[in-house]
């Protein structure tokens, strides 16, 4: 379990990082927390020729509050997000989701930028980013660009971030005080990558009908990207009843379309000795994931509802 030989450059600024990514060739990649990349390198699933270490860019490690958003620097550790007062006050859904990522030792090192760029199917950050319509700020040789979740996530382990670009910031809209939320996942083991993950937000009108409802799911789309559920829009304007939830549960089952073959194709990869290895992912049948999508979505919405009603224990 030793990586192939590689060059190593430690940088102190975003500009230096971009310069280094350009200078050292196509096979140059960023290393942040190393919690995904190092294992892939050690298994020789990933064979970069040069690493650009961005851990020295200390001004990418921040959580800031603006009028209606919070901005998180790409180098912010999972643990910082988990413990942040700003996140707790303004985006508790994000905070709840982060506690599900791995174990605290890994959360101490892993970064939000690294996780989003890695985009393993089911990963918590991606699902929350999708449900909240977060924005991704990416810097490259030509300056910065801002992408939506729809544009950012491309497929399993792939994003729109180019080789010579660096994610610098993620912007999460604040949750309004009247928004209920829920995050749930099915994992086979504590801290393990989920089989399915679900995030939901809910707002009610004065008359208790649904004002807005959003659900995003992880590890259910055939493209391997966090998936925004369409059929949840049917709740809008209606009372939040068991009946309509039952209908939605059914519709979600029909709507989501996991593709185990596509997952396997992305998940299996060669490693040392050309032995078939595996990139971090859970593969289970489409049937099961449809079922779990529907159950988790409804539960997350119910949790959100109970929160609004103050009945959540």
């Amino acid at each position, binding site marked *: 379990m030793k990586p192939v030989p590689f060059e190593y450059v430690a940088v102190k600024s975003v500009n230096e990082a971009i310069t280094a990514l350009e200078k050292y060739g196509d096979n140059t990649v960023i290393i942040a927390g190393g919690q995904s990349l190092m294992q892939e390198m050690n298994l020789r699933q990933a064979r970069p020729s040069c690493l650009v270490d961005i851990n020295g860019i200390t001004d990418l490690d921040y959580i800031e509050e603006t009028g209606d958003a919070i901005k998180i620097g790409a180098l912010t550790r999972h643990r910082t997000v988990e413990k942040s007062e700003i996140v707790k006050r303004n985006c508790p859904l994000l905070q709840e989701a982060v506690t599900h990522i791995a174990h605290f030792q890994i959360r101490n090192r892993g970064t939000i930028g690294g996780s989003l760029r890695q985009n393993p199917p089911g990963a918590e950050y991606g699902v929350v980013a999708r449900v909240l319509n977060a924005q991704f700020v990416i810097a490259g040789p030509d300056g910065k660009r801002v992408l939506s979740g729809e544009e950012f996530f491309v497929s399993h382990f792939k994003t729109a971030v180019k080789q010579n670009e660096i994610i610098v910031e993620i912007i999460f809209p604040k949750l309004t005080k009247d928004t209920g939320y829920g995050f749930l996942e099915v994992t086979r083991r504590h801290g393990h990558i989920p089989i399915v993950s679900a995030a939901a937000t809910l707002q009610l009108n004065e008359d208790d009908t649904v004002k807005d409802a959003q659900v995003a799911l992880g590890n259910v789309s055939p493209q391997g990207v966090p998936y925004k559920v369409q059929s949840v829009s049917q709740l809008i304007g209606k009372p939040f009843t068991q009946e309509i939830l039952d209908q939605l549960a059914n519709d979600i089952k029909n709507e989501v379309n996991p593709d185990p073959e596509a997952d396997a194709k992305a998940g299996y990869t060669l490693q040392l000795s050309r*032995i078939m290895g595996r990139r971090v992912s859970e593969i289970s049948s489409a049937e099961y994931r449809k079922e779990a999508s529907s159950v988790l979505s409804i539960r997350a919405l119910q949790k959100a509802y109970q929160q609004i009603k103050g009945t959540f224990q």
Partner: protein
Amino acid sequence: MVTVKKGLGVSLKRKEDIRLLTGNGQFTDDIEKPGMLHLAIVRSPHAHARIVNIDASKAKKLPGVVAVLTGEEALQYSGPLVPTINIFNKVPEVYAIAYKKVRYVGEPVAVIAAEDRYIAEDAVDLIEVEYEVLPAVVTIEDALEPKALLYEEWGDNKQLESRTTIGDIDDAFANSEYVFEETITHNRYTGTPMESRVCIAEYNPGSKKMTVTCSTQAPSQVRTLIAQTLQMPEHNIRVIAPDVGGGYGTKLQANAEIIACIMARMLGKPVKWTEDRVENILTGVHSRDYTCTVKIGFDKDFRITGLQAKLIGNIGVDGTCHAPGTPALSVAGAYFPGPYKVPVYDVEIIGVVSNKAPYGAHRGYGKDIANYPIERMMDIAARKLGISPEELRRRNFIKKDEFPYQQISGPLYDSGDFDKLMDLVMDKIDYQNFKKKQLELRKQGKYIGLGIAAMLEPSGAAVFNGIFNGYQAATVRMTPEGHFQVLTSHQNIGQGVETTIPQVVSQVMDVDIDDIRFVYGDTDITPYGLGPFSSRGATYTVSAVYEAAKMLKEKLLKIAGYLLKEDPENLEMANGTVRVKGTTNPEAAISLKEIGNKVYLWPGPYATVPEGIDCNLEATYTWTSKVVKWEPDEHGRVNLYTTHPTGVFVALVEVDIKTGLVKVDKFVVSHDCGTIINPMIADGQIAGGIAHGIGGVLLEDLAYDSNGLMTNPDFQHYLCPTAMDVSDIETIHMQSPSPFTPLGTKGMGEGGTIPSPAAVANAVEDALSPFGVIVKDLPITPERVLEWIKQGEMQNVKS
């Protein structure tokens, strides 16, 4: 007040923990030798293929690479792997490095020695191996078909085939009130020690001496295997095992270790091979993986009338030479009757070879195979009979006054009281109350369940034909200061022997355990003997140590009698002195230190040791069991195990019927391992065993696809339970001392693992009984649970 730490039955803190917890342990990989080279192994990416050509020319040119060796070239230095054990099974011709053919993914194909491991792994990338891929034999069906032959010369894929019938089984079933039959399967899983295997081999071409430092459970046995495989004189081989980070049965062979020895011999330089986790999962010996059809008859009072079991184990490539796995199936055959009285018994065992990794030992060694199908069957039958699983077991338990009990399948059970164990555990969980709560919670959509599994843990195997024969010597030695060393081949693999063995000696000598050191892990120092496997420590090693200590004590009393001018019969040992029984008079006592000083140093042996006594202040005793029976009777029955801990395990679970997630809330255990040496360590063994069981039943799975490629060869995908996944465990002990060991002790390292999968599976079925769920293939994944619920519901609709 200074407390003296001594005696049996006391939860003394583990002496070894200070070293290990402060980072002062030394494991094989911590050791560096001057000029040492590092090995990396080119492994087969195919399950089954002929090796057509190996081109190492590019690798050899890589700066830092010192040597490359293929299987064919290795034939100059080594013969085939020799059998570790052979109980009537076929012995394949296999090598440490594959020769002509590869038979599983991960099989070594070539070895590289380089200046460091990085370069060695770079060279792996450069070696080009041309294969002719053959059809892969993956499942039992593939093997029996046969889809291909692993060993053409065998003509089939069966390594083991046996049948034993005692009584007329057809007649028994014909005369039964009820007969049930189920086919029960188990997943493939393994021991996953914290430290993988590591081996440093050094060969001195001048003295022709080979020194092998490795992470093993069994230094003496490894020495023998190396000598036989490399065809070297055994007295020139020294095996050292320093701190070992767990074994769980997976470190009882020399296969990969042979590779390091070959390279050292060829190069005359020290070489190190450190197994990485992927290598460990791919090749580091597997276990379980079987299908078992159980047929059981009951009379009108629900007493067993006959038991029939047909077990087919998927051994993988081999379970004899690579590792001692195959006989685990035979052990299962001897123990299917378990804690129950069975009047007629019929068992058939087939071990098929396949293109999976070698079959080895893993906590349970077939006793788990004996347990799981039967304990599952007891629950399934109880449900069909409409009585409680507790009651069905009670009707069939062997009774307390029937011990020692001659089991129909051969074993002689030493002692126990299953009814009492059941009482203890049922009182603790308040069964009636639980059932009430279960019904109430169901109304709220919550499904909790309770699963019982009775446990029998045959411990201390003495198996003929191989390196697991029960040989155990111990030396107890007094130093000039009056302190003690205990020397045996019983390796410390984390089970607490640096504490428990001194406790045994302290019981005899009445000294503090801090004044006693357990010495192990070097075949040049300790007497020949076997390592910890088969939970044999408290059966064999403890007994040998106890007897040796008693011999030494007798000698010390004689010397003290001579010095004190007292009859040794009137003397006793107390707090590090020998004194006249009961006296407080210092004149009538002599300290052990004084005796040691006088004999060894001042003045020396003359005039301090009475005539006729060997002045060597040490004693060696080799303990053998009085009840082991190797000569088969007319049915081929033997008795290999001396002691049998017993227990009743109860798992409490909650199942989310919408997601299929199973959470184990609690284990409640009643346990009896005879005389307990250290209760805290015993509890630790049970807890660790249960963690292993929970892993096997819910999480761990060595999964292969239809081409024989493993789909989860790393710890991100092979899911071991963490502390977060293991439930609370409450253990109640009782003690029925074994009549077959001098202290009444019984080995107990596997008892937690043996019944816990059945307890969890039974609990899941109990939780989901409204849906008529039957637990089928393991592990119990959320996906499978939903499937079973659906199947159960469909069944309910139909009936």
